[in-house]
């Protein structure tokens, strides 16, 4: 609530590190893609379709990571009531939803030629979709609440309770399918692909951090504008 400690200098928003981040992300991403695509053998059943894995799987990991960030900063918000925590949680949720959507989209694009269907009611697929809907609910809630404080508290609560539910959702949906035939999801991975996967994950992580940072900076700039208006309105008190 105290304004005085809000020293925010738009010229020092870390744009430079931002540029390094995005450059690093793009370079690593391109390099790893080239490496992975040229170096990994065509897979037996799927042929070169398997290459989708290099984006699909890291995207899924980044989704989980984002939701974890939402959880941590939501707890922190309710504890310390710092506006920044709310903004970071919101940024992570937005970016996480994008990665979640990407996982779904890539998975479906992959599933069509491999399984012959866009969708199967498999445990992992269903829980990924439910996770996506929890994110959507979180973001919708933010859109429907006008008061900044109320929005922060509500979305923190929804973020935490949603995060608690994620493992339960995953567990329940997995048991739901347990004794039925599994779609041929290659969860066993040939070591030939692991290296490509790992470095791709690092590239994606850089992208994720960059996105969250950028989104957060935008949110902070919006706040800064409001706070500048504040000092003007209070007559330089």
């Amino acid at each position, binding site marked *: 609530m105290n304004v005085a400690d809000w020293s925010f200098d738009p010229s020092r928003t870390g744009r430079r590190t931002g540029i390094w981040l995005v450059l690093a992300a793009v370079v690593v991403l391109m390099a790893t893609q080239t490496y992975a695509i040229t170096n990994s053998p065509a897979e037996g059943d799927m042929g070169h379709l398997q290459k989708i894995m290099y984006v699909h799987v890291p995207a899924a990991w980044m989704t989980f990571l984002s939701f974890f960030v939402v959880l941590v900063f939501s707890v922190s918000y*309710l504890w310390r009531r710092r506006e920044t925590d709310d903004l970071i949680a919101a940024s992570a949720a937005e970016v996480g939803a994008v990665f979640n959507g990407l996982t779904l989209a890539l998975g479906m694009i992959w599933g069509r030629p491999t399984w012959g269907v866009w969708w199967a009611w498999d445990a992992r697929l269903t829980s990924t979709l*439910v996770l996506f*809907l*929890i994110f*959507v*609910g979180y973001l*919708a*809630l933010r859109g*429907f*609440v*006008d008061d900044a404080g*109320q929005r922060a*508290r*509500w979305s*923190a*609560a*929804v973020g*935490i*309770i*949603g995060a*608690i*539910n994620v493992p*339960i*959702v995953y*567990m*329940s*949906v997995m*048991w*739901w399918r*347990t*004794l*039925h035939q599994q779609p041929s999801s290659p969860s066993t991975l040939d070591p030939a692909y692991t290296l490509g996967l790992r470095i791709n994950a690092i590239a994606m992580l850089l992208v994720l951090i960059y996105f969250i940072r950028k989104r957060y900076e935008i949110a902070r700039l919006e706040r800064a504008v409001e706070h500048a208006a504040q000092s003007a309105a209070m007559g330089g008190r």
Partner: protein
Amino acid sequence: MAWRDDWRRVRAIARKDVTTELRAKAGFNSTASLGVTILILLGLALGPDAQALRDAAVGAVWLALLFSGVLAFNRSFQVELESGALEPLLLYPGPRWTIFAGKLLGNLLFLGLMVAIVVTVGVVLFSVEIPARWPTLLGVLALGVVGLVVLGTFYASMASRSRAREVLLPLLLFPMLVPALVAATTASKALLGADLMHDADAWIRLLAAYDVIFLIATFLAFEHVIEA
């Protein structure tokens, strides 16, 4: 002394909600009828094959409870919002969790009654045979309803105060209820003997854990949510 005052508050809120519901002529009757109507719709949409219907019975009953429950939860906070009664409610002294507890109790009573009706009708409509382990089945039902009411009441306390209340509540609530729905339907099917591959007990434990976890979590979170 303090807990007595708190309990009096909880009771007052629950009583007020139930009275309003009963007095808004047939508020209860119509919610129950709606549950039955949804059962019939599900039957029509999924039918007409008799075996398919019997298999769908458990799912249909739970969906009917879910859909009509959502409407009831939204109502319970909307009563506060109409003519701005939420503000006076927030201005009463005393701990705020009593508000949540009161709403919870009211909704539990309301939905409990509704379950009795919808399940009875469902059993008849879908020709469900009552198994020997029916007390366990009732337990599953109770656990499922508690989970539904706890999360429903909690999310309604936010959704009904936002701009898009009708839509926001189910949007937030339904994905959260997936484990409860899956656990309750699978356990019920196992108990009904329709599904021989699953063991009911594991599901019941999951359902109980779900209830306990979210009962605690929502009570803790409510304080932050109800604040103006």
